């Protein structure tokens, strides 16, 4: 049986820092941190991996993105929405920040949670494709395809909205 206290003692600070950076609010970050551990404990065996930090970090990211979407608010501090906007706006074919803002809305509304988490890890956190793939449990080619599909859907999303 998993020892919640030991798990928190080792990984709680990392998870809370992640939640703070994305949500920019101490109460919300504490709430998201607890929710992350609830989900992690429910996932059971996945936590027995050699490096649970990747799983917990991705779960925390997903929990925070869900919280932001639920509140229909954009993240406010380092690692948050503005950085995501700028990062995506500066990548490939997406150039205008205004369009990128709508792109982010599209991502948050339409994409699978795992894809959103991957996008944040890569575009915002600056993990390489290899590093992102390792942490979300995908092959690099698989991740590349997911992100390419994401960009394609984003383009279509923007074209539809024109």
């Amino acid at each position: 049986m998993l020892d919640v206290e030991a798990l928190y003692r080792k990984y709680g600070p990392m998870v809370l820092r992640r939640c703070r950076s994305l949500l920019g609010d101490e109460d919300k970050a504490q709430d998201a941190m607890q929710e992350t551990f609830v989900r992690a404990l429910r996932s059971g065996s996945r936590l027995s991996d050699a490096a649970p930090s990747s799983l917990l970090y991705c779960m925390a990211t997903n929990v925070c993105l869900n919280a932001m979407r639920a509140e229909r608010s954009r993240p406010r501090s380092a690692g948050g929405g503005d950085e995501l906007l700028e990062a995506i706006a500066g990548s490939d074919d997406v150039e205008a920040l205004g369009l990128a803002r709508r792109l982010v809305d599209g991502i948050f509304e339409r994409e699978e949670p795992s894809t959103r988490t991957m996008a944040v890890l890569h575009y915002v956190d600056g993990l390489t494709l290899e590093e992102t793939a390792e942490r979300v449990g995908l092959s690099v080619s698989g991740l590349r395809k997911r992100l390419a599909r994401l960009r394609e859907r984003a383009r279509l999303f923007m074209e539809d909205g024109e």
Partner: protein
Amino acid sequence: MRAASSRLPDLLLEQYALGELSDAGKARVEAVLAVDDAARARLDAIARSNEEILSSSPPAEIARAVRARMLTAAGTPRRARPALALAFPAAAAALLLVGVVMFRGGLFPGAADLERPKGGAPSLFIYRASASGPIELRDGSSAAAGDVLQLKYGAGSGRFAAIASLDGRGHLTWHLPAGFDDLRGGEAPAPRIEEAGSALPSAYELDDAPFFERFFMISSRDGFDLGAVSKALRALSASGAAESGEPSLPKGLACKSLIIRKSGGGR
């Protein structure tokens, strides 16, 4: 394609501090640390932050709060801070005087994975949350105040059904429909079952009522009035036979009951 930032990602530093990086990742981080004062400062800040967080949010408190959240499942009103989360038992205690306590909005962990009851003959199942997963409580099983229970029922699709319980204090609690106020009077139709079998949407915490909590599932192919069921159950309770007697229900209603003995209840 990758982000233009050359800043060492937070996650890599976190995992370096935890000793959970691959050899390649470790080499990348150490190469940066060797030449980047700012990166070293960030690593030091992680160590200081760890101490600050574990001091202000102690592991034992957070673990209790997380366990409490696991019992109430997703969708339960959020408790933003550990202190508030820990205040929950006190709030629950205040409700103990009015029958089993319902956790609105969620199943308990693992309940969603329980085997779906088959349709056909009406049936009622009760599970108790435990650290190792749901444990089925059969008729006559023991449970204690504070135990969290999940009810599941089986009934032919299209039937009408209601579930209520009587406790050792004679209190009547409605579970299906949840929160039904039978004292308001007036006609109240029993809900129609759309699925052959399902878990109730909320788990329950047993209160400190003594002796027993007896659950009744009443069903019929035809619609029926909950008020008549309420009257029969209250009459059963008033007669002192709630523990083993049968309610005098209107003709055509099937009744299935299941009793949970309260451990430490004096009997």
